[in-house]
């Protein structure tokens, strides 16, 4: 039982990171139908930014985190406004290719600037933990869960109640109709990229926490979060959360319980197995939009 709870906690913490990755994906995809292949690379930038601000510039950790979020959110919006905006009227496919290009640029620039070695994050937690009845709760994982919960609550409140949240939903539903009634659609797109950047900074920082470190392979998390996005439904932020946490738990549980004959690394396959099983019965994912219209 202790082992189960331990794995459950680790699974939820890992799932929170996946949920943040998936949220960044779906926010952009829902509004503009662009699959952002650079989301994992944005996480990588986030981790390095926090590390740079906290260790090289010696900023207090909280300031480093806030600064990284602000910088990456700005960076996302600027990228959208300067690069993607020029592609107005081009097929979505072109934009998707540009995001692949962006991810290549980032993935190769980071080692060029910071070197290929692992860096320390500069976080105050390290490997410290509390022990509750035999279950080890690492502080970094506790904060992962807390901060993810906070960010998700903020995002959903924004989406549901704010003017620009409404504008995002209207743009997602029908871009041309939104333009036609006066929604500044281009500003909405810039906003979705800012959100993608902001959540990537948080995801990246926790991804680099103990037992990992700040290193150039962090961006690979996007591949591992992929089943979470598909599972939840590409265009559903709540689906991103449910999918992310589910996949996190599946991955950690299968690493703890999978029998030996499945091989050593079955835990990295298990999320895809779950994804395929779900898609067999729900082709649009758990929460994805299946168009329902009254004609």
């Amino acid at each position, binding site marked *: 039982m202790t082992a189960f709870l331990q794995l459950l906690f680790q699974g939820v913490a890992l799932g929170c990171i996946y949920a943040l990755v998936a949220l960044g994906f779906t926010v952009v995809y829902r509004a503009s139908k662009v699959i952002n292949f650079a989301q994992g690379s944005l996480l990588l930038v986030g981790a390095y930014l926090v590390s740079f601000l906290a260790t090289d510039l010696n900023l207090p950790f909280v300031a480093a985190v806030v600064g990284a979020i602000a910088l990456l959110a700005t960076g996302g919006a600027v990228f959208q406004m300067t690069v993607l905006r020029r592609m107005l*009227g081009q097929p979505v496919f072109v934009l998707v290719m540009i995001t692949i290009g962006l991810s290549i640029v980032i993935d190769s620039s980071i080692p060029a600037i910071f070197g290929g070695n692992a860096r320390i994050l500069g976080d105050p937690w390290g490997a410290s933990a509390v022990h509750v009845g035999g279950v080890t709760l690492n502080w970094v994982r506790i904060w992962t869960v807390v901060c993810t919960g906070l960010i998700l609550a903020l995002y959903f409140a924004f989406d549901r109640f704010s003017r620009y949240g409404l504008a995002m939903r*209207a743009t997602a539903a*029908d871009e041309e109709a*939104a*333009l*036609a*009634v*006066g929604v500044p659609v281009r500003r909405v797109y810039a906003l979705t990229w800012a959100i993608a950047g902001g959540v990537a900074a948080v995801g990246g920082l926790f991804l680099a926490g103990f037992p990992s470190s700040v290193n150039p392979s962090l961006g690979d998390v996007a591949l591992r979060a992929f089943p979470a996005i598909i599972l939840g439904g590409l265009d559903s932020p709540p689906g991103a959360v449910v999918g992310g946490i589910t996949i996190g738990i599946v991955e950690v549980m299968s690493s703890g319980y999978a029998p030996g004959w499945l091989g050593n690394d079955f835990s990295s396959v298990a999320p895809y197995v779950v994804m395929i099983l779900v898609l067999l019965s729900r082709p649009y994912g758990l929460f994805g939009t299946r168009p329902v219209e009254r004609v």
Partner: protein
Amino acid sequence: MSQEEEVRPVTRGPSVGAVTGAQQTPAHAPVSSALLEVDELRVTYGGAVLALDGVSFSVPEGGTVALLGANGAGKTTALRAVTGLLRFHGGQVTAGSIRFAGRSIARADAATLVGSGIGQVLEGRRVFADLTVAENLRVGAFAGRARRREREIRQELLELFPILAERADQPAGLLSGGQQQVLAIARALMAQPRLLLLDEPSLGLAPRVVAEIGQALRTINERGCALLLVEQSTALAMRATEHAYLLETGRIRTHASTAEMLSDERVRASYLGAPAVLGHPEEVTR
């Protein structure tokens, strides 16, 4: 309660509308400066296909104008040119001018134009199906010229279209076709347009519903909002507009008062598919 009754607009209520914002414009604008003036407009799609070839028309302040013509004549393209949506469809104005309230708007972007007083209702209603009726109206107020008065404007619209108040919390996708059309019109009015452009608002609606939409448009016009109506069928144009232009493959063929135009048998038969020559009207117009 039948659908026809549900969408019927209530014509009583405040006569000078907060809805249309007409009071913000001079009551006696000189005749020479129409509210919307399109002059010798040429539009191409993809740099190759010529959609409009020297089209001129105008809508006077508070006036009602119909743009008639068969499928493919260029009616929707003309609207897109005015509202800044051409680029969205890969189209481009290559010559001519568009002036709204005296200012050139040929290069303005869509959202800005809504803010400066041009409202539009796209073909096929295009309500946000997953958003509630109330949320659809809120989106309409996004670029409004009088956002501070959003509540007041909405109240007035809900009095004009009571069905929207009844259905306020339902997803717009669950409304009937006629109700969705009413919602699309109300959503556009949330921005307090001085000119409302409507693309085929009668498409797919029963004749009685069309009559009621016509009544609503007249009420909106009485409150000071000019109308530019694009139609393939003639019933709504007859009800709601005074003047009409006939478009034929990218050019203005003729213009006259709507009644005159629609009483011309040749016009009806050749361009509008009215039942003069060929069998059933439905088959011909579609």
